[in-house]
């Protein structure tokens, strides 16, 4: 009696197990034929305004040595290299498919809004004000505000207080975060179009000091190492540089952020990341402190062809 009950129980358990295994196998089969739920890079790319475009236009500066500069007709600099990496990731590689457009500091937002460029990689600080007008992917660099003075004044201008002295003419570029920061600290600054104009003016004796991002100033210092000196001042604000994207194209912003994150992860795993290569080739030797790629913000989760590759 007990034995028969046992064998019956056993038979029911086996039946259930067989049925469940078959159900699971069927579920697995259906799952393997379903469309993937995760958004892919390719799918996002189809949503962007650049999809199908034969050329990608990236707005860069042409007068910020080390960041964005024009040398023998070639665009060079850290921003240019980052732009090249993002463009190649988006499918635009080589001169035939990638065009760098010179964009002045004050024209960065209008050129994105007007559709003159698809992306802006030009020491573009991420601010709340600007976020209302354009989208940002990044940050891809964290820099601080610094002041560069002519070598003869290096002992006289040491503090922000010194800058307030009307005897010294302080110059900065229009539409930059530096301009706003100086205003906040009641430093009267002469506003010109680009930092390059300030430097040219200083070399002609028209200005005494220039305030801008550490990266931009390091570029000019690299060009004229004997004429200028960077003074470390406690502005206390850090500038997060981002890649500007038209506000109406969230898919493109997501993709750019995704590729910045990819580079960030490569660097974190100890591999040679595109960011690190760009940094070493341009800014690296000229900055006083070693910098690392900051972690990009608001990175979407996308799947790509190389997702199955081993992570280490």
């Amino acid at each position, binding site marked *: 009696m007990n034995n028969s009950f046992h064998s*019956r129980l*056993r*038979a*029911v*358990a*086996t*039946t*259930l*197990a*067989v049925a*469940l*295994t*078959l159900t*699971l*196998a*069927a*579920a*697995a*089969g259906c*799952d*393997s*034929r*379903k469309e*993937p*739920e*995760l958004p*892919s*890079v*390719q799918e996002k*790319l189809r949503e962007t305004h650049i*999809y*199908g475009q034969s050329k990608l236009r990236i707005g860069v500066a042409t007068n910020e040595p080390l960041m964005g500069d024009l040398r023998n007709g070639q665009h060079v600099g850290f921003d240019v290299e980052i732009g090249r990496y993002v*463009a*190649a*990731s*988006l*499918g*635009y*590689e080589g001169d*035939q*498919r990638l065009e760098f457009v010179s964009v002045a500091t004050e024209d960065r937002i209008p050129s994105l809004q007007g559709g003159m460029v698809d992306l802006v990689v030009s020491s573009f600080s991420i601010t709340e004000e600007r976020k209302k007008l354009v989208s940002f992917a990044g940050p891809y660099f964290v820099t601080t505000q610094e002041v560069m003075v002519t070598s003869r004044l290096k002992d006289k201008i040491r503090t922000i207080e010194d800058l307030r002295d009307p005897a010294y003419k302080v110059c900065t570029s229009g539409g930059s975060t530096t301009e706003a920061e100086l205003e906040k600290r009641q430093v009267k600054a002469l506003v010109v179009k680009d930092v390059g104009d300030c430097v040219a003016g200083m070399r002609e004796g028209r200005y005494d000091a220039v305030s801008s991002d550490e990266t931009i100033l390091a570029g000019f210092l690299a060009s004229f190492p004997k004429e200028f000196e960077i003074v470390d001042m406690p502005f206390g604000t850090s500038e997060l540089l981002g890649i500007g994207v038209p506000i109406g194209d969230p898919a493109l912003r997501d993709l750019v952020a995704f590729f910045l994150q990819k580079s960030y992860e490569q660097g974190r795993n100890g591999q040679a990341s595109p960011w690190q290569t760009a940094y070493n080739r341009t800014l690296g030797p000229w900055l006083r402190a070693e910098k690392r790629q900051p972690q990009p913000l608001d990175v979407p*989760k996308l*799947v*790509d*062809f*190389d*997702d*199955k*590759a*081993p*992570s*280490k």
Partner: protein
Amino acid sequence: MSASPTATGGPVPPPRPAVPPDLPPAEVDAAGWPAGVPVAEPAEPLAVDAEPGRVRWDPAERRARASQSFWTAVVGVPAIFSVLRLGVEAGGELQTTLLLVANVGPVNLLAGFLTTAARLLSTGLVAVFALGAVLAVSADRLPPGTRRRPLFARWADITPAWVVLASFLLALLTWPLLYLPLLLPAFVAAFQLRPERLHERTLPRLLLIVALLAGYGWLLLPTLRDAWTQGEALVLALLVVPPLLAVFVAGPLPGMVIRPLASLTEVAVLSMLVWAALPVISTPVLPLTVTTVGAENGPTEDVRGHVVTTDDVNMVILQERGGVRYVPVDLVRAQVLCPSEEELPRHRLRVHDFHIEDSLLEGMGRRVRPVHRIDAACRAPG
């Protein structure tokens, strides 16, 4: 089934006096068996404790027939598929199909087929063998003369154990890691490995089972945690449930289940094969490339497609969106290999750095060549 003798020259059971009344005469004629021939006993030494059933003709004859049809299917199906694929690959165009036939060698075709269809093939075999063994062991328990042995049971009977083992090995290497746990109950069912085989006493047996399951859980714990946070319920079920089922899956089924299960699974396996064969037929035979074409210093164009052949004059490209392009070799500026969108992963989970959608073979391959670069040209629209 695995333990059954497979040679056709085994001992023939002693004759029985009667023919089952429901025997269709046409089948007897087809087998070439004279009327009024005695009924043989089943050739299942496995079923020693079962009541002897009745079979309709000589087991040796039956085995030979079943074996023939089995091997015809194993060899014939890939061959037919390979040729069908060329037609699909060519976009249904006769001339393009002929171009492909002229340029794709039979060895390439078969190798290409095996790389894409090994998964399907092993799935079909594993399903047949596992179900066959379950049905066979259940049919042995039935009262004699009730019905024919189910088809899968007969297939499982005549297949040598090494073929079954080889199918499971092929599945182990080619199935995605996510589905590998399902292989466990299938294996246990195919070889009818009851938990009693682990240890004759209950307590050590239970301890062994718990230890094995704990080891499995420990191996998969990080993946299970990730699957939980990502809300992947099916993945969780596929990883957790099958090993538990493996404990219960071996053994005979109740008599009333056998008939519906046999017919249902026969239809299911057949439709599964047809359903899964469609993507295999439409999987390309040739690798996907993007070829940059253009004169020196002139504008360039990217041609996305499969290179059929290259000679001194032309490179023949079967374009992805259709049509054949003959590109002069002098104009080819660059060429890159591209992944296709079907290769995009569907889950974001790993088992000890092996992606769960990779098979063991693929996972090992990725360790040999870990860096994978997607060329910019591959992103461009086709």
